[in-house]
């Protein structure tokens, strides 16, 4: 099965129509976001991130992950949020996008949730900003809104190329 298919189809329910997807949820600024579990390699406690001189503003720096250099993205900046102090709950989520492996710094990681495709709605199509493209959909979860993020769209092709040269 190709990586794309794996990312889209985790599990199919009995009637085969309403796919069930698993999402790793994390928090940023009191909001809960979800990323497809198939894209998540691992979740790390915060460790020192080495800044890279001349790196784009959305890059926090690099970490050494068992001998591999992984670029860490400033998720708050990318999502248009204020930066904040790192806490004990802060985590670096290592993800495998279509392009490469990167880390994203988040305020905390919550849980893995199961969502049927039918439980996912599109976000209002009123975005004017590039960042509007990150949103793959939205869903209700225990009376809270879960914002599903398309990680592959978090960076443009040029930006993916740019960070590939950092690591």
């Amino acid at each position, binding site marked *: 099965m190709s990586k794309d298919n794996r990312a889209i189809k985790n599990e199919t329910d009995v009637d085969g129509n309403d796919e069930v997807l698993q999402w790793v949820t994390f928090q940023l600024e009191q*909001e809960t976001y979800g990323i497809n579990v198939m894209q998540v390699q691992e979740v790390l406690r915060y460790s020192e991130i080495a800044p890279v001189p001349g790196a784009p503003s959305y890059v926090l720096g690099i970490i050494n992950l068992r001998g591999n250099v992984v670029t860490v993205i400033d998720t708050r900046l990318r999502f*248009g949020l204020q930066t904040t102090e790192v806490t004990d709950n802060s985590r670096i989520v290592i993800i495998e996008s279509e392009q490469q492996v990167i880390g994203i710094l988040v305020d905390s990681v919550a849980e893995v949730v199961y969502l049927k495709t039918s439980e996912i709605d599109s976000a*209002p*199509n*009123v975005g004017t*900003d590039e960042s*509007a493209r990150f949103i793959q959909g939205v869903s209700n979860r225990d009376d809270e*809104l879960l914002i599903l993020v398309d990680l592959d769209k978090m960076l443009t092709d040029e930006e993916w190329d740019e960070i590939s040269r950092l690591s």
Partner: protein
Amino acid sequence: MTTKRDNSEAAMAEYLNALLLEEETVEFDNEPVKRLLEQAAPKIQAVAEEETVSLNREQDLLPLVSAKADDSYQEPEVETVTEVETETVDLTTTETDIDTEVHTDTETEVETEVFEVSEPPAEPLPDAMSEYMEQDFQALFFKVAGLTLAVPLKSLGGIHQLGKISPLMGKPKWFRGIMTERDNKLQVVDTARWVMPEKCTPELEESLDYQYLITLNDSPWGLLCEELVTSEPLQPQSIQWRKESNNKRPWLAGVVRDRMCALLDVNALITLLDKGLGHIQQD
């Protein structure tokens, strides 16, 4: 000596007339509006108390407000329009030298790859306003940043007490985010920012104290409001209806003459919001 209330009414009249008129070459003196907004922003509650509310607010409006904990809650019945004989209404207006401000919103639609659900309607919704032009109807009056707006009750989806709003990245400033309520995802519009973005100074925005979300028809869109004023019947002749040629602000159905407040064309508003458009359409 003119009172503060006279000034407010004069300013509001100018502002609303400016909204209705489409002349391109005249100037709009917005000083009274500025003064009004300066006065109104910190004193919205005080101004509201000056108004005579003809109906008992709790009795009339609270049934419309959704009770979060009550799962058996049903949408309020608002089918209270009385049939009357239609009559020709003289819509001649006194056109004054007021310009409509040029607004340069350049909001464009961004394609997003999403799941195949609930695509916004491509076609404009049918014009319900023609019905209101022919017979009496009940309207809800509400306030935002000192501006009173009216909306036909029949065109309301409901009134919700404000809960947590989850912002979405990359959206226009007038789109506050999504409020979840009983499995519904309500799309929250910052009414002041949408209706009069040019008047939304940081000070005014800070003073806004939104309390309710008024949802529009069967759509997920809702307008934030600071205060529910009243609901009362309106006669078609009491409204200065929008001219057919007014394509710039299709959301503006007309102006309620007595109250000098804008009457919203809900379906047109929904169509604009679905398209992610601002309050003024460029020619």
